[in-house]
């Protein structure tokens, strides 16, 4: 399935400075694997050492959190948008 993965600002430096990447993927796991194969440095930002998706990084298919779908096995359809949304804390000082 042809899908688009949106890379958030804090992770763009590790993804060739790209805002989004178009790729073929059948489910979320394949989409993220495709991404980390292409951009090796992204891997440690998305996955912990034991290979699990980090708890401060959420993944959405369109507007739905994959934790409430089939997690990384969530199927993708043509035209789906996969968003990676990490927590950011900026606001007041400095």
């Amino acid at each position, binding site marked *: 399935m042809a899908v688009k993965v949106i890379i*958030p*600002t*804090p992770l763009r*430096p*590790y993804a060739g400075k790209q*805002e989004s990447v178009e790729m073929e993927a059948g489910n979320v796991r394949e989409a993220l694997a495709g991404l980390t194969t292409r951009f090796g*440095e992204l891997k*440690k*930002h998305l996955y912990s050492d034991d290979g699990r998706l*980090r*708890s*401060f990084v*959420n993944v*959405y298919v369109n*507007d*739905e*959190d994959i*934790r*409430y779908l089939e997690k990384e096995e969530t199927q993708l359809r043509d035209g789906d948008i996969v*968003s990676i*949304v*990490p*927590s*950011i*804390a*900026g*606001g*007041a*000082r*400095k």
Partner: protein
Amino acid sequence: MASKIKVPNSPEAGNSSAALSKEEIMRYSRHLIMPEVGMDGQLKLKQAKVLCIGTGGLGAPLGLYLAAAGVGRIGLVDFDKVDLTNLQRQILFDTNDIGRPKIEAATNRLRDLNPDIQIDTFETRLTSENALDILKDYDIVVDGTDNFPTRYLVNDACVILGKPNVYGSIFRFEGQITIFAYPGGPCYRCLYPEPPPPGLVPSCAEGGVLGVLPGIVGAIQAAETLKLIIGKGESLVGRLLLFDALAMRFRELKLRKNPECPVCGEYPTITKLIDYEEFCGIRGEESASPAQAVPEISPRELKSRLDRGDDLFILDVREPHEYQICNLDGHLIPLGELSRRVNELDSSREIVAHCRSGKRSAEAVEFLRSAGFRKVLNLKGGILAWSDEVDASVPKY
């Protein structure tokens, strides 16, 4: 969703604060002639109590709009002083305020804007010890802080006290806005159960921020706060609004309450405030950085060794746009590219790595040592310390 916030609905007879003076009617006339606000809404605003945590980038537009709108009691929490780098975005302050406590400058500005409202000031860092006490008197809490420990602290305190938390955060040109801890709605921990480990996500100080971004995000927080108070419209409860100023695009994601959430779930495991520095893996800002563990050289020592003609290779691990601001004539390899460009370095030479403050270069030194480089030193305090101790003509940023 109907408003469940404890804001008095009907003005009590005989309570003078529950009526608008002739001058207030004039001041708020553009609200009063709008049916969505009207006299009812304006009186709700007048009786509302809102706590703004942080008076910086987000707190500035927030405080200004809440005060202008006639929110009757505004609490401000901040412990910082105004500095020159704040003025690029913190529009509550002006150049004359540099060095002044933010809380003092902010209070003066808001009092000038609207002398009819009450401003409570808390010149302190929000901590597990004082948070419940500070938050308890307010109807709504607005989180405009800049770090993970305080974000989790504000969230947990709001959940414990049952107060909505109007949340906004920013990074470079991207913002996230929602309302957490609204009765029945999700909290921050439902979205992110844990914070990132220190160092993995750059802070605003390292990452930078487009000056107008907190203006937009803080103004959205203000709009959500006013809507909660007057009980009108569709709030951001259950929706995470993402804003990208570069693409100039808003997106919206669904936020769900996690039944297993450790603080607001069915069987909470966190029922009182904890040590948030520890939770976020920070035990004193200094010891959190690997700088302690790597060999260092002070700026003065480096200067005298260079003057002596020692063969030192200066490695600058900042980004190219930072190199343009100022540099020490070093060889530039951004930290993120170091692992694949390590072949540009000669391990037989003595290398001094530096960045802006010494934090990224400490990581670089650690990496190079693990890659077999023996003679690598970290410039202590980075280019900032170099400017302070050796060459004041080098600009600080």
